[in-house]
C-alpha cells in the first residue's frame, strides 16, 4: 500500500495534446485536466493508493467512448476505465500519464423486458437500481455485492463481483447474457447473445473479471430472476469457529444450498452489535447466518432441517427469524460489518482470499498467530458457503510502521490462502494491490499465457496497464526482494 503513493509529474505538453485531441469531439466539460477537477478521481475504494490522472474523460454515450479510445490508441495514451470507484484493489487507480475514462454518465437502463427477464443497461447504472427497476415485475438482478447501492454494473462485470447470495445464484458471469465492448481501437464488439450461449469462444466469460484490461464495457444485458416467494434466516452461535465451519459442511452434506451462508468471528460481533443492535450473542466465538429462500413449502422444509443441523453440530444458540423485520435485522449486522469494524481503528485493510472450507480453522489459527507477529488486530467476516474470507486488518495509516505491517500481514494471509489450496482473490480483483501475490499464485508460464491473451485484445498494452497481471520482470524483482528481506536466511534479525 505504502509503496505506491508516488505521484508521476505531469507532462504538460502531452496533457495539452491529449486534451486538444479529445476536445475535437467532446464538450469542454467532458474533458478535465485541472488539478482540482481531476483530484476526485485519484483513488478508488482502496484509498491507500493515490495518483492523479493526466486527463479525465467523461463520455455520455457509446460513440464518445469509442472516439476517446480511438484517439488514445492513435496517441498511444494508456486508459483506465472507472465505474463508481468502489473497487477494493486499486483497479481503477489512474495512471499519471494516462486518461481516466469515467463511465459514470452512461447510466440509462435502456430496456427492461419482463417476459424475457432481461435488462439492457449502460455500464454506469448502479447495481441496486436494476433490481429496483425490475421489482414491479416481481424480478430482480441476483448478484448483490455489499456495495450495491453505489457500485456500477460495468465495474461488477470488470471484477466478476459476487455477493451474499452467490453460492446459490452465482457471480456476475453467471448472470449476464451479452456485452457490448469497445476495443482499444475504438470498435464495438458484441460478446454473448440473446440466447444462453453464442458461436465461437466464450469471450463473454473471458471479458468478465478482466479488470478493464481487455476492453471497455459499454452495455450489459443482464438476466433477471423471479423474486423468491419468501426467505428466512437461521442465526446460530458457536463456542468455536472450527465447530461453526463444520456446521457449514454439515448443511452442505445434507444436500442444502443455502441462499446465503455468512460467518462472523467474535471481534466482528463485538464491533457490530453496539453499532446496529442486530441481536447477536456477544459471548459467541463465531456466529453463522444461514438463509433459505424459495417457495413457502421449500423454505419451511429447509429451515427446519437447517435448525436441526445447527443444533446437532454444537451451536449453543439457534434462532430463526420470525418475520421479515427480524430477518433484515439479522442481516443488518452483517451488512454493516465493514463500517462497524472501521470504527474500531483509524483504518482497516480488507483482504479477500478464498479457501477450501475444510481448512478454515487452520487458516483462522494462522491469522491469530500473524496478529501477534505484526502487532495488529484482525476481525474476520466470511462468506462461509463459498469459502471467501474477508479478514479486516486494523491499523493506523499515519503510523508508517503499522501501514507496512498491515501490508505484510495481508500478503502473508494471501500466501496462506494459496498454501491451503485457495486463491488470493475471490471477488475484489487483483488490481494493483495484490499484483505481487499473483507471482506466488501463478508460475511464469501461466503469467505469460495471461500476457498473450492480453496481447490478443490490446497489443500495445494501453488498457489499464500495470494492473491485474504482473510482468515477469516484476515477479523476479519481487522474488529477489523476498530473499533480501531475509525471512528464511536471518530469522534472528528484527524486521521493521
Amino acid at each position, binding site marked *: 500500500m505504502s509503496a505506491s503513493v508516488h505521484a508521476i509529474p505531469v507532462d504538460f505538453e502531452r496533457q495539452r495534446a491529449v486534451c486538444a485531441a479529445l476536445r475535437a469531439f467532446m464538450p469542454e466539460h467532458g474533458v478535465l485536466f485541472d488539478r482540482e477537477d481531476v483530484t476526485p478521481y485519484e483513488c478508488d475504494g482502496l484509498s491507500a493508493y493515490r495518483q492523479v490522472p493526466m486527463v479525465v474523460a467523461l463520455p455520455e454515450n457509446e460513440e464518445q467512448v469509442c472516439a476517446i479510445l480511438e484517439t488514445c490508441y492513435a496517441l498511444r495514451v494508456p486508459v483506465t476505465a472507472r465505474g463508481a470507484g468502489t473497487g477494493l484493489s486499486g483497479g481503477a487507480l489512474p495512471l499519471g500519464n494516462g486518461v481516466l475514462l469515467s463511465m459514470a454518465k452512461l447510466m440509462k437502463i435502456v430496456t427492461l*423486458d*419482463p*417476459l*424475457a*427477464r432481461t435488462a439492457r443497461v449502460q455500464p454506469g447504472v448502479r447495481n441496486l437500481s436494476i433490481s429496483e427497476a425490475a421489482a414491479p415485475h416481481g*424480478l430482480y438482478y441476483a448478484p448483490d455485492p455489499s456495495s450495491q447501492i453505489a457500485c456500477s454494473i460495468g465495474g461488477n462485470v470488470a*471484477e466478476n463481483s*459476487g455477493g451474499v447470495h*452467490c453460492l446459490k445464484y*452465482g457471480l456476475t458471469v*453467471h448472470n449476464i447474457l451479452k456485452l457490448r465492448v469497445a476495443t482499444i481501437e475504438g*470498435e464495438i*464488439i458484441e460478446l454473448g*447473445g*440473446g*440466447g*444462453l*450461449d*453464442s*458461436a*465461437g*469462444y*466464450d*469471450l463473454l*466469460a*473471458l471479458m468478465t473479471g*478482466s479488470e478493464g484490461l*481487455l476492453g471497455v464495457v459499454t452495455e450489459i444485458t443482464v438476466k433477471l430472476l*423471479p423474486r423468491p416467494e419468501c426467505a428466512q434466516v437461521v442465526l446460530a452461535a458457536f463456542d468455536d469457529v472450527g465447530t461453526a465451519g463444520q456446521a457449514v*459442511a454439515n448443511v*452442505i*452434506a445434507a*444436500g442444502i444450498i443455502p441462499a446465503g451462508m455468512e460467518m462472523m468471528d467474535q471481534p466482528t460481533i463485538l464491533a457490530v452489535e453496539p453499532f446496529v443492535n442486530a441481536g447477536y450473542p456477544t459471548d459467541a466465538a463465531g456466529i453463522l447466518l444461514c438463509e433459505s429462500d*424459495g*417457495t413457502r*413449502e421449500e423454505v419451511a*422444509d429447509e429451515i427446519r432441517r437447517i435448525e436441526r443441523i445447527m443444533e446437532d453440530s454444537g451451536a449453543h444458540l439457534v434462532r430463526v427469524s420470525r418475520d421479515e423485520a427480524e430477518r433484515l435485522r439479522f442481516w443488518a449486522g452483517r451488512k454493516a460489518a465493514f463500517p462497524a469494524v472501521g470504527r474500531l481503528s483509524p483504518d482497516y485493510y480488507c483482504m479477500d482470499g*478464498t*479457501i477450501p472450507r475444510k481448512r478454515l480453522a487452520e487458516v483462522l489459527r494462522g491469522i491469530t498467530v500473524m496478529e501477534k507477529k505484526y502487532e495488529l488486530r484482525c476481525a474476520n467476516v466470511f462468506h462461509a458457503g*463459498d*469459502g*471467501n474470507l474477508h479478514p479486516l486488518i486494523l491499523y493506523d495509516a499515519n503510523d508508517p510502521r503499522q501501514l507496512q505491517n498491515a501490508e505484510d500481514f495481508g500478503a502473508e494471509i494471501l500466501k496462506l490462502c494459496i498454501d491451503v*489450496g*485457495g*486463491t*488470493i*482473490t*475471490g471477488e475484489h480483483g*487483483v488490481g494493483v494491490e495484490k499484483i505481487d501475490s499473483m507471482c506466488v*499464485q*501463478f508460475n511464469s*508460464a*501461466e503469467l505469460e*499465457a*495471461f500476457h498473450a*491473451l*492480453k496481447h*490478443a485484445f490490446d497489443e500495445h498494452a494501453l488498457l489499464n496497464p500495470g494492473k*491485474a*497481471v504482473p510482468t515477469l520482470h516484476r515477479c523476479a524483482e519481487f522474488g529477489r526482494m523476498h530473499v533480501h528481506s531475509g525471512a528464511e536466511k536471518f530469522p534472528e534479525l528484527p524486521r521493521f
Partner: protein
Amino acid sequence: MSDPATQFADAIRAAADAKRPLNICGGGSKTFYGNPSIGETLDVTTYRGIIEYEPTELVITARAGTPLADIEAAMREQGQMLGFEPPHFGGNATLGGCIAAGLSGPRRPYAGSARDFVLGLRLLDGRGTDLHFGGQVMKNVAGYDVSRLITGSLGTLGVILEVSLKALPLPPSEMTLCREQTQSEALALMNEWAGKPLPITATCHVDGRLYVRLAGATPAVHSAAAKLGGETLADGAAFWRDLRDQRHAFFSGESPLWRLSLSSIAPELQLSGAQLIEWGGALRWLRSDSDAMGIRKAARSGDGHATRFRGGDPRSGAFHPLPSQMLKLHKRVKQAMDPVGIFNPGRLYADF
C-alpha cells in the same frame, strides 16, 4: 510407463516443431459434431481417474479421460450431480470431451451451463506447457478466466488434462407434468413460468405436448404441480434422459439436425421441418432440409445463432459464421494459446 501428461506434452512439442496438426480425441462420441477433424490422433483417454472429490466442498476434480459415467456414478453415491446435466451421446463420453464440447442438457437454463460449473482446469497449450487456471474453490478472480474460455472451444486451444467442477445436491424429489399445447402457447407459458418463483428444472415442447420437470423438496414439488396442472408422466426421468442424449424419436431419421440458440421469447420459427423446443424457449431443435442461409437468418432475427448439429451440407460450416471483427479476435486468441496452430485446425472454423 511415463506419466501420460508428459507423453502428451512430448507429442505436442513434436507436432509443433513439425507444424503437424493433432486431433485431440476423447472417446469420439461427439465426432459427428463440429467440422471434420484432421491430423494425427492424440488419444487422451489414458489419462483418467477422479483425483479428488470432497462432497461437502461441492467440488470434484478428475482427469480429462475419465468417463463421464464414472464421475456421475461417484457423485450419485454422495447424493450429488453435475448441475448442467451433460449429454453423453453414447456410453463412453469423457470429462475432457464434455468440457471441450461445452454442451449442457435440459437443466441448463435453470441451473447453469457447463462453463458455469467449471472452477478450474489444467491444460497443455500449443507449446506443450503445463498450465493451471482457476482452482478448486467457488470464487476466484485471480487472472483471466481461462478455464471458462477453454470450455466449449472443442480442443482448439489446448489439451485439457484435469478439470474441477462445482457439484450440486440431487433434488429430493422430481415430477414431470405434461399437457397438450400448441407451440406458441407453449413458448408463452415457458416464459411466463420462468418469471415466477417455481421449482422448474426443465421444459420441452415436442409433438404438440409441453413437458415440465419440477424438482426440490417434496411438498414444494406437489404445491407447484397443483399450481401448474397437467398430467403426471410416469417415467419422467427416462423422458429427460432420452432428450439429453438425443434418443428421443425426434432425433432419429435422416434429415439434417439444426440447433438454434435464441432469445427465449423469439417467436415461432417460420421454417419448414419439425421442431423441438427446450430451455424455456431458448433452444430450438430443427429437422430441416432448408438452406443454411435461411436458417441462420432466422437465428439472427431471434438474437441468436444456429449450429448445423448433425448431417446436412458440409459446405456450410457447422457453426454460425462470425462477424469479421470477432473472427479476427478469435484468430488472435487462438494464436495466443496455440501459436503454431496444431490443435484441431478447422474443427470450429475453417480459418483457424
